[in-house]
Each structure stands twice: as structure tokens, then as C-alpha cells.
């Protein structure tokens, strides 16, 4: 299935992402509102435009949700497919992420980062949850983890960021790079990283922190600490 076709399956009844049942349940839920604290808040982390988009979603504006999806759907899906190694699961994860935004837009904290960062964070955490649930269910000895499927190559991405992150990752000391990649892409806990690499847990924790710090510093040096 092509990447675009996979995303297409999220569209239900002409309404991207969200079924009528979900949409109608939003009324019952009542909805948090970001508008009050979001509007007028000037921050280097999230742009005013992003705050407006989330504020519109908080008012139940479906066009705003479609816009969000058009902009970030492929990023969310790509992260999910990379971590779960499973396109069906990745579709579920992507749907969960956008439903979550629709239902709880107030979860977006502009002081903690851009909208793009928030969605990437949600995608990763949902994908990791999926992998851990699967592991708990099956306790498989080894999980098949296919590499990123080749048709993900066509995904539009923030290529400047990807390129710089790629360089930052390449420049990491080997021990940090291995630990960071195991944790992020293979959904390993730091304890699993420690066991796998046969190092103390404290060492695993510090490699993850130091490695991420170096990546963060590279992004910040290039003025990309708060891309949108």
C-alpha cells in the first residue's frame, strides 16, 4: 500500500480522520479551550499562526483539523510506521494522535515547543505504547522490525531539520548513537538498552541524555531549536 493510500484510509465518510461518532462525542466531552491562554501569548517556541490553528480546532473547526492533518499527517505516520514496523498499526496510531488533538487541544503547551514538535512527540509516544502492548501480549522472543518502507521516501518532510538531525546523529560518539537510536526507533526502555548493550542502567541513562543534548545543541546552533 502506498503511503498516500495508507493515509487515505483515515478518511471516513469524506471527513478526514475522524468518524461521525467521534465528532459527535466531542460535544459531550465539552472540550478544553486553548484560546484564552494561547491568544496573544508571544513565544519563540510556537508561532502565532500555530496558536490560531489550535485555537480553531478547540472551537470544533473541522477545516482546521484537516489543515493540521494535511500539514503533519505524513510526519506522524512516518514516525509511527518506523517505530511499530507495521503500517496498519501506524494508521491506528496516526488516527489516535489526531483524534487526541481534536478532543484535547489544550494538551498543546506552546511554551514547550512548536506544534510540529508536539505532534511528533505524541506520535512517538503512541507508537511506543503500541509496541509495548504488543510485547506484553505476545512476549515474542524477537520482534520483526522491518526498516522504513521505501515508499516513505516520498513523504514531504522538514528536510532542513532532517538533514541537520542526520548530521548531528552521525557526529555522536558511537556509544551514544547506538543507545539513542535503540530507544527512539526500536521503542526500548533505558533498562532494555542497558541489558542489550550490557552496560549499567545508569550508563544507559546518561548516554541517552548526553546524546540527545548534543543533538539539541546542534539544532539550537543552527537556529532550528524551534522550527515550525
Amino acid at each position, binding site marked *: 500500500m502506498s503511503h498516500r493510500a495508507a493515509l487515505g484510509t483515515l478518511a471516513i465518510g469524506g471527513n478526514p480522520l475522524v468518524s461521525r461518532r467521534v465528532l459527535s462525542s466531542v460535544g459531550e466531552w465539552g472540550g478544553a479551550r486553548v484560546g484564552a491562554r494561547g491568544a496573544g501569548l508571544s513565544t519563540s517556541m510556537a508561532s502565532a499562526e500555530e496558536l490560531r490553528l489550535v485555537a480553531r480546532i478547540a472551537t470544533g473547526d473541522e477545516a482546521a483539523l484537516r489543515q493540521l492533518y494535511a500539514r503533519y499527517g505524513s510526519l506522524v505516520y512516518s514516525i509511527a510506521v518506523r517505530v511499530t514496523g507495521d503500517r496498519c498499526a501506524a494508521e491506528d496510531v496516526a488516527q489516535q494522535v489526531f483524534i487526541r488533538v481534536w478532543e484535547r487541544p489544550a494538551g498543546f503547551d506552546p511554551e514547550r515547543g512548536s506544534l510540529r514538535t508536539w505532534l511528533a512527540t505524541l506520535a512517538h509516544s503512541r507508537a511506543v505504547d503500541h509496541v509495548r502492548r504488543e510485547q506484553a501480549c505476545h512476549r515474542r522472543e524477537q520482534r520483526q522490525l522491518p526498516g522504513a518502507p521505501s515508499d516513505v521516501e516520498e513523504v514531504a518532510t522538514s528536510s532542513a531539520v*532532517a538533514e541537520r538531525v542526520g548530521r548531528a546523529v552521525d557526529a555522536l560518539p558511537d556509544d551514544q548513537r547506538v543507545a539513542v537510536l535503540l530507544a527512539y526507533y526500536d521503542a526500548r526502555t533505558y533498562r532494555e538498552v542497558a541489558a542489550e548493550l550490557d552496560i549499567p542502567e545508569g550508563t544507559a541513562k546518561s548516554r541517552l541524555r548526553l546524546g*540527545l543534548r548534543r543533538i539539541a545543541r546542534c539544532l539550537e546552533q543552527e537556529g532550528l531549536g*524551534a522550527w515550525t
Partner: protein
Amino acid sequence: MTHEEAAGLLGAWALDACEDAEAASVERHLASCADCRVEAASLTRAAAGLGELAAGA
């Protein structure tokens, strides 16, 4: 959880590599520690950058 314990876990936390109870403890600490919040935000952006790499790979 002390500041040192939480700070030591921030990388794992940003990578979703803590167990649930630990992640919750880190988040409780973040609510009361501005220094850790700053680092957590920075590490979260770095982790999201790895997601960009997945999308661009």
C-alpha cells in the same frame, strides 16, 4: 524523586524510554523544577528531530 534522579532520567524520558511509573515521577518533578523543564523542552525537540529523520529517511 530528587532533582538529580529526575535530571538523570530526562534523556530516557524524552525518548519515551522510561517505565510508566518513572515517567510519571519525572513529570511530577518537572512541574516544580524550572531547570529540568528547560532541559526537558530542549531534549523533547531533539527527540522530535529524530522523528523528522524517520519521515525523511
